[in-house]
């Protein structure tokens, strides 16, 4: 769908193995708001014929979509930037109240070496906000640890019916596009 250039494997080397993990878990729906941090992973999902990738207007739609997907017997993954987390806190209560599995991948802004002031309040509060919504948070800042962390998070989410977010450090998501 997107014609935008996808970051190279070199720029975001963790994305391809994460996509492999999503395939291993038979993830069939992906929901996203376009985001530079996840750009390579989004591109891989869009190109994957086994996954239905849904472009959202705002992030909370994705949380609701994941609930519907699970009700219908499919697994999904929800991709968001850290700012988008702040739009979802209320919708996450549905996931909690119904004990619906949720796998969320969060790409950070306002954190590692951020030069842009307006990203800082939300970025610094992302993990606390997720935890306020009772989401289990796994933070990862080494490229070679991302896929294994997503694998652990997915196993936990889908086997124990929990909401689990893998928060990918800004250290790994910057592609040099903007300062």
């Amino acid at each position, binding site marked *: 769908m997107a014609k935008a250039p996808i970051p190279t494997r070199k720029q975001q080397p963790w994305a391809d193995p994460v996509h492999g993990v999503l395939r291993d878990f038979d993830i069939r729906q992906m929901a996203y708001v376009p985001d530079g941090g996840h750009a390579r992973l989004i591109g891989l999902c869009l190109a994957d014929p086994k996954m239905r990738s849904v472009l959202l207007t705002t992030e909370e739609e994705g949380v609701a979509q994941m609930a519907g997907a699970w009700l219908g017997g499919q697994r999904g993954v929800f991709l968001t930037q850290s700012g988008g987390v702040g739009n979802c806190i209320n919708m996450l209560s549905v996931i909690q109240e119904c004990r619906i599995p949720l796998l969320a991948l969060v790409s950070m802004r306002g954190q590692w070496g951020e030069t842009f002031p*307006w990203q800082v309040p939300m970025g610094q509060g992302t993990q606390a*906000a997720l935890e306020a919504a009772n989401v289990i948070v796994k933070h990862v800042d080494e490229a070679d640890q991302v896929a294994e962390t997503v694998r652990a998070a997915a196993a936990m989410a889908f086997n124990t019916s929990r909401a689990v977010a893998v928060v990918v450090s800004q250290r790994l998501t910057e592609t040099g596009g903007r300062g």
Partner: protein
Amino acid sequence: MAQAKAKAKPKSRAKAGAARHWTADIFDVLKRHNLKQVAYVPDTGQAPLIEACIRDNEIRAIPLTTEEEGIGVLAGAHLGGEEGALLLQSSGIGNCINMLGVPIECRMPLLMIVTMRGEWGEFNPWQLPMSQGTQAALEAVGVIVLRADSAERVGETVAAAAKMAFDAGRVVAVLIGQRVVGHKNWDR
């Protein structure tokens, strides 16, 4: 509390006036600070306050489709030289966390009056996850949180919060406990 009659017309309740309603104390604070824009998502607990704002000729009452719009409205109002308040339920806080980054980053004043659901005597389980995380979510982005858990404390707490918001230029939320608001009970 009065709230037990969920179907009672809030208007008549506000006028009935045996005891002064806590929302009247909030309204006094809003007037004392000369607030001109009050953005809200309807809420049973604050209904008399919303109606008072709608009736007031100097206040523009702005109904929202979702709470985060109110953060933008009040930031714009501040730029234009008017102050205001956002009236919402605790669940609505969960829609605003990202947007709150704007007034925090710009050091703009913002006063939020939040009626709690999902705590004291709540019957609806779906309300619990969000309400139990309301204060933590606000503090996660740097909002100052005050609480009032008795009707008598509401007025002074909102007054204190308004000073911090408008005089000290901070983003402040007052959480009004469900004990004050009362809890619905559809089971009878």
